[in-house]
């Protein structure tokens, strides 16, 4: 079973196929949480790659002398 939010009365048969306010809020909260974590992960990776590059360049420069 998927993680579903069951339809409320406003979305019953014949009603416009729209999310209720509660459904929209829950959806956005989860999406916002995921986006925030993904942003932190990508930012951390950028910092890590920068740090690795500096270490590798420094090691090569040190080896050349």
């Amino acid at each position, binding site marked *: 079973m998927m993680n*579903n939010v069951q*339809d409320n009365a406003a*979305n019953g048969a014949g009603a416009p196929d729209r*999310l209720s306010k509660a*459904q929209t809020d829950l*959806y956005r909260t*989860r999406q916002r949480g995921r986006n925030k974590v993904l942003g932190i992960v990508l930012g951390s990776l950028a910092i890590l790659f920068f740090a*690795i590059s500096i270490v590798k360049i420094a090691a090569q420069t040190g080896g050349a002398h």
Partner: protein
Amino acid sequence: MDSAKPLGSDVALPAEWRDFFALTKPRVMTLVIFSGLCGLLAAPGTIHPVIAFTAILCIAVGAGGAAALNQWWEADIDGGMKRTAARPLPAGRMDRTSARDFGVALSAASVMIMGLGVNWLAAGILAFSIFYYAWIYTVWLKPRTPQNIVIGGGAGAFPPMIGWVAVTGDITLMPVLLFAIIFMWTPPHFWALALFVQTDYAKVGIPMMPVVAGEKSTRRQILIYAILLLPVTLAPWWIGGTGAIYGWSALVLGLIFVAFSAKVGLRDAAPDDTMRPEKRLFAYSILYLFVLFGVLAGDRIATVQGWQ
């Protein structure tokens, strides 16, 4: 996007980030990180802290990717066991495609970063360890043979070896011995658990040793592996790869392990038994590995500092 159904009358919510994190089996990951770090600290040679951090991060992320792939494959089995029914997939908080994609992405990223940032031998072993756990153990061995834990133990044995190779760039006898220690430790550790949760495994048709070969045979094998583990843990000291701090600690810890295993191995449990000795062996086996690898790293630090 991991919503399998369109928005409308039946809304599929995106899985929470916490569920993705849970897919990586964080509790297992702590042991993986610790043993990898100890392998790295115990290795001869030096490594820049940034590269060391990268290596441990890649070991952790690779283990997380393999765990996600394991849960993707075993979602139905997990749903049938009390211990695993609350995981994101069997509980219905996430769809299987997302779990699979997440596992593949973590695995690929960890291997690539390990190769580019640390060295390609460590990356190669990491890639093989992910394949070993996600395919050889999960797909192939686990549902087919009661020896699944024995051979599958190799999957958990790779982290200290990868940590070591991250520093040295080559494979010698010492990292192979570190691999062998966890390999030999896994059967008594898991079979102790399997003895007190065997109905769970039997329900979903996983041929764990107590279910297939019976309790008596499992108990005997727990004791045999615990006895065999002792000389394997002493081998690094014997070949001169570690100092006396590690050697004496391994001897004492190993004798206690054998004592706990003997209590399990030499008894017959009644049907309504509380399985206290088995639970104590399981708990001690975790502590044992943490302390043994901690002492291994400590021994190396003591040697470098000239304290022994």
